[in-house]
């Protein structure tokens, strides 16, 4: 197994790059999975909004507002007196440090009691859903306080009553199971994210193996060796397959370690079969790339451009819900699209119905892409050999 061992050793030279892509998957994959996953809840849980509150009035009413909001949302009291402070607050809202910010100016209570414009303002990311929610809550509370006061209650009583009403309101809410569950479980998101790193690692690792074989000096030595070409090719295929399987298993291991007990493992075999199909695509693309160029820099550059593009368009980094129809139509011509479709089909179907969910079609499409790259690689290799001869 001389050739087999030698080829696996050549990958060691690229170990730093491969580890970087592996770490990218392990760290970012688990973060993204936790951010983008949606679980099916059996009980209603209110969406908690993080609100920055600038209270320059410090009145009974403004403190009442803070108290009422803190029952439902997370309130952070901040100080902002200058225009720069407000810009900073605006930036924090725009970049999701806070969902919204409420600015209560001095004189707010007096204005409300006098029936004038209150002067209260809020900062939000445009007309966001969270700001709509906050706006509704704010208006409801202040309106209730004023109504109580107009009905003959004192200000303190009005605030206490309005807060009490908010606290005691418990709507009856029933969760109904939807027909179609969207494919965003922890496992599905993590497996989808695997696509980029796995393709990069396979591409760089295997293309390095193939390009090293194609180097003129090494090729000449291989040609004059007593080992049969069949044996050489067999060991080359074995080395490439071993590398591919090691990468696949390592990635699956990372998924299990990073998701721990949080994920549902009942479908892991199906996800792994889908990933194995993508592994074949990665190997065949690497073969194609390795036959085109022997320059390691070019291999890394082209791999990055191709797989980064594929991953963005196919829904690996950005969920497909946010992407335009036309982009998704183009993505049908990319293997990663079918891989992501596979993960969604596995995620949405019951375990017993996975094979009938369209997964077979996605696997076949991936394997067809693998055949296409492999065929193109053989054509390029043959042309190059003819040219050399």
């Amino acid at each position, binding site marked *: 197994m001389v050739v087999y061992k030698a080829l696996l050793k050549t990958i060691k030279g690229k170990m730093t790059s491969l580890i970087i892509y592996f770490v990218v998957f392990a760290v970012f994959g688990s973060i993204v999975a936790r951010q983008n996953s949606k679980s099916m809840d059996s009980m209603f849980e209110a969406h908690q909004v993080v609100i920055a509150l600038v209270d320059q009035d410090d009145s009974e009413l403004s403190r009442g507002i803070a108290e009422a909001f803190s029952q439902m949302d997370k309130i952070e009291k901040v100080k902002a007196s200058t225009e720069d402070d407000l810009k900073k607050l605006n930036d924090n809202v725009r970049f999701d440090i806070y969902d919204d910010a409420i600015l209560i100016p001095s004189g707010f209570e007096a204005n409300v009691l006098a029936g004038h414009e209150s002067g209260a303002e809020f900062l939000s990311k445009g007309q966001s859903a969270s700001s709509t929610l906050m706006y509704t809550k704010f208006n409801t509370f202040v309106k209730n306080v004023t109504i109580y006061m107009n009905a003959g209650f004192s200000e303190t009583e009005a605030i206490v009553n309005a807060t009490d009403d908010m606290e005691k309101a418990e709507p009856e809410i029933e969760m109904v199971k939807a027909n179609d569950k969207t494919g965003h479980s922890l496992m599905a998101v993590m497996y989808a994210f695997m696509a980029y790193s796995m393709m990069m690692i396979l591409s760089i690792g295997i293309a390095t193996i193939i390009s090293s074989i194609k180097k003129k000096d090494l090729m000449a030595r291989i040609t004059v060796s007593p080992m049969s070409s069949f044996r050489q090719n067999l060991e080359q295929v074995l080395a490439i397959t071993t590398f591919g399987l090691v990468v696949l298993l390592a990635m699956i291991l990372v998924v299990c370690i990073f998701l721990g007990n949080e994920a549902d493992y009942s479908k892991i075999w199906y996800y792994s079969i889908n990933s194995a199909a993508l592994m074949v695509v990665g190997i065949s693309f690497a073969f194609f790339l390795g036959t085109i160029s022997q320059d390691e820099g070019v291999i890394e550059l082209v791999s990055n*451009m191709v797989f980064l593009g594929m991953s963005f368009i196919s829904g690996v980094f*950005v969920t497909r819900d*946010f992407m335009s129809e036309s982009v998704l139509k183009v993505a049908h011509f990319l293997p990663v699209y079918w891989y992501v479709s596979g993960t969604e089909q596995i995620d949405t179907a019951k375990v017993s119905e996975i094979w009938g969910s369209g997964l077979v079609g996605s696997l076949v499409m991936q394997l067809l892409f693998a055949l296409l790259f492999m065929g193109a690689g053989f054509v390029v290799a043959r042309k190059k050999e003819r040219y050399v001869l």
Partner: protein
Amino acid sequence: MFGHVFIYQMKQLFRQKWSIGWNFCFPLVLATVFFFGFGNLIKEDPDVFKSVEVGYVNETSQEDTLFEQLLDGLTEVDEDSDRDNPLLILHEMTADEAEEKLKAGEISGYYLETTGADSTGADSTEALAKSSAKVGTEAFTEVSTASTETDIKLKITENGIDATILSQVLKSYQNSESMVKRVMEEHPENIQTVMDELTNDNQDFISQKVFNKNVAPFVNYFYALLAMASLFGSWMCTAMLQGMCANMSERGKRFECSPTNKMTAVFAGLLACTILQGLADTIVILYINYVLGIHFGGNLLVVIALSFLASAMGISCGALIAAICKSESLLIGVPIAFSMICSFFSGLMVGNIRAIVEQKCPFFNRINPAAVYVESIYRFCNYGADQKFWNSVIIMVCMTLGCVVLSSLFLRRRSYGSL
């Protein structure tokens, strides 16, 4: 001599395939994939509130209940309000239809209003309101008790902001019910005032503060992309200096033997790198603005000028790295790690990371060249040339000069006994 070295460095840099690939093509490809990934989100902001589609099933004996009136009120947009869309889009339907549409995801939820088990028919707050002006206090209490027998249930399929909005609507209604009961108990003489004010929807106690320019937050990814492209200049610079140092390459040995003034040649090389990198960034900016149609929000010439300054900063950082690092592997690894780590913390991979760092450790944002560049371009495009914009520009100039001076100190007075 300056001009001679400058022209030859330009020629040499242009002939490096990897330089063209990483510094010119890669940012264009990345901008394109960002566009396909986020472009939709920039043009149609996903955070913009879309009215919640909700069903309403009335299984009470009344045709137009107070709750239904409340829901109807929420389907209209108040002219004085900041809001463009109504809170709800209401669909009245039967229970079976609502269940079907909810499960199919056509509505976010539905309200089911039924007659309470012990209701006597006068079971709504509307009845309470109508009788409020005519009957005595005891009757108020009686009607109020009956009104609580109307059951309103909200049915949803998943948690989230839409479900919370629907729940909040129901809460508001329950608040009003509690209020009416309380007023009836303690100040019955004012019940009519309460009912009038409850039905008055034209009260806005808070309005939205809008800064002049609110460029979509996703554009920040493109700012970070420009920062990354500018810092890629450090690779170009290390490669250039490799060819000028005798301990790095054969060409370096020949260069060190030549009678050319070393510092003049190094500065000519730095200028060539800066111009090339600036050109590469300009192409990316023009591509993003005119081809992808994503507007930065500020004057494009200023953005280009900032990118040249950022390129100079990236190149000078590269010069410092090349002056400090002596091994060939470090000269490849350090600039890559430097540019990628700085870009990450400026928001290339996680859009709000710069804001998080600003909260936790603002000093890091002042010394991270990519974050300083993104800050300058962000400030300019969103708030104009304010004090913080100029602070960022000054930091970039200081960083550039500092790195050039330090690298000059490291590179000067190098002499060899033999080569």
